[in-house]
């Protein structure tokens, strides 16, 4: 069994560098499975927005990461929900065009395993399938117990979730 950092040292997980400014502290972290890393490296750069908006999906994820990694609130009021619980401790991180599926191994420590475009996920009803793939990956990952934060409370999985 190993910690997230140890698994990263073993090359079983990969830390996504949020490229914060030099004066910013990284408060929330994201690690990717080999599968998610490959998707970010190879698929994401080629995606265009299905909403025909200025920011390409890769740029949307970068903007999300800049907010997520900082200590800023993730949500303001109702209706701008950047993360959503899918059951069994599986969460999706959301941008206009993307969904990233994974879990929180501890508060502010997200491990992502799969991602896809919102359009494709909705068109083919892939939520359940991706959630199942996350659970299977998590089960077989040699991660210290408890492997995930249970429950559907966003405040339990990220600090400073909601704007007061």
């Amino acid at each position, binding site marked *: 069994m190993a910690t997230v*950092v140890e698994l*990263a*040292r073993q*090359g079983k997980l*990969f*830390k*996504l*560098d949020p*490229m914060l*400014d*030099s*004066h910013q502290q990284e408060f929330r972290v994201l690690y*990717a499975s080999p599968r998610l*890393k490959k998707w*970010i*490296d190879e698929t*994401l*750069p080629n995606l265009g927005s299905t*909403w025909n*908006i*200025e*920011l*390409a999906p*890769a*740029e*949307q*994820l*970068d*903007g*999300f*990461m*800049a*907010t997520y990694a900082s200590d*800023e*609130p993730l949500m*303001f*009021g109702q*209706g*701008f929900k950047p993360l959503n619980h899918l059951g069994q401790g599986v969460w999706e991180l959301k*941008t*206009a065009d993307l969904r990233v599926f994974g879990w929180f191994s501890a508060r502010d420590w997200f491990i992502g395993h799969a991602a896809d475009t919102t359009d494709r996920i909705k068109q083919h009803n892939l939520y359940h399938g991706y959630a199942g793939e996350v659970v299977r990956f998590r089960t077989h990952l040699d991660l210290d117990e408890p492997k995930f934060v249970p429950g559907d409370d966003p405040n339990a999985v990220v600090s400073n979730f909601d*704007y007061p």
Partner: protein
Amino acid sequence: MPSFQISITPSRREAARFVTRVRRSIQKALAEENKKNGLTQSDIARTIGVHRSVINREIRGYKDITLGRVAELAHAMGRKPVLELPEVLPRPGANTEPRASVKISSTDDTAELRQEPTQQRAA
């Protein structure tokens, strides 16, 4: 420890973060005005003269927001948008060329878009 980055150019990274911060400033202002004065997206839509769904898509990031719309939204919320583009100067001790970082702050009656110098992170 292996780490990796999202593959986009520095200028597009700056653009992505600026657009994200502008939208978050609007979301924050709306949340504050909703809490303080009960202002809703429908109220804003009526003031501007568009359907509420348009405002909703713009604020949530499913539709681009023009600079003009930023001003209209600010006005409808009783706020004032301000854009400043100060010269980027190298910081003492910086070991690489500085790059621009656009920062937004807002108060009860103003929303400022300010450009500040930052230090390029070491490669």
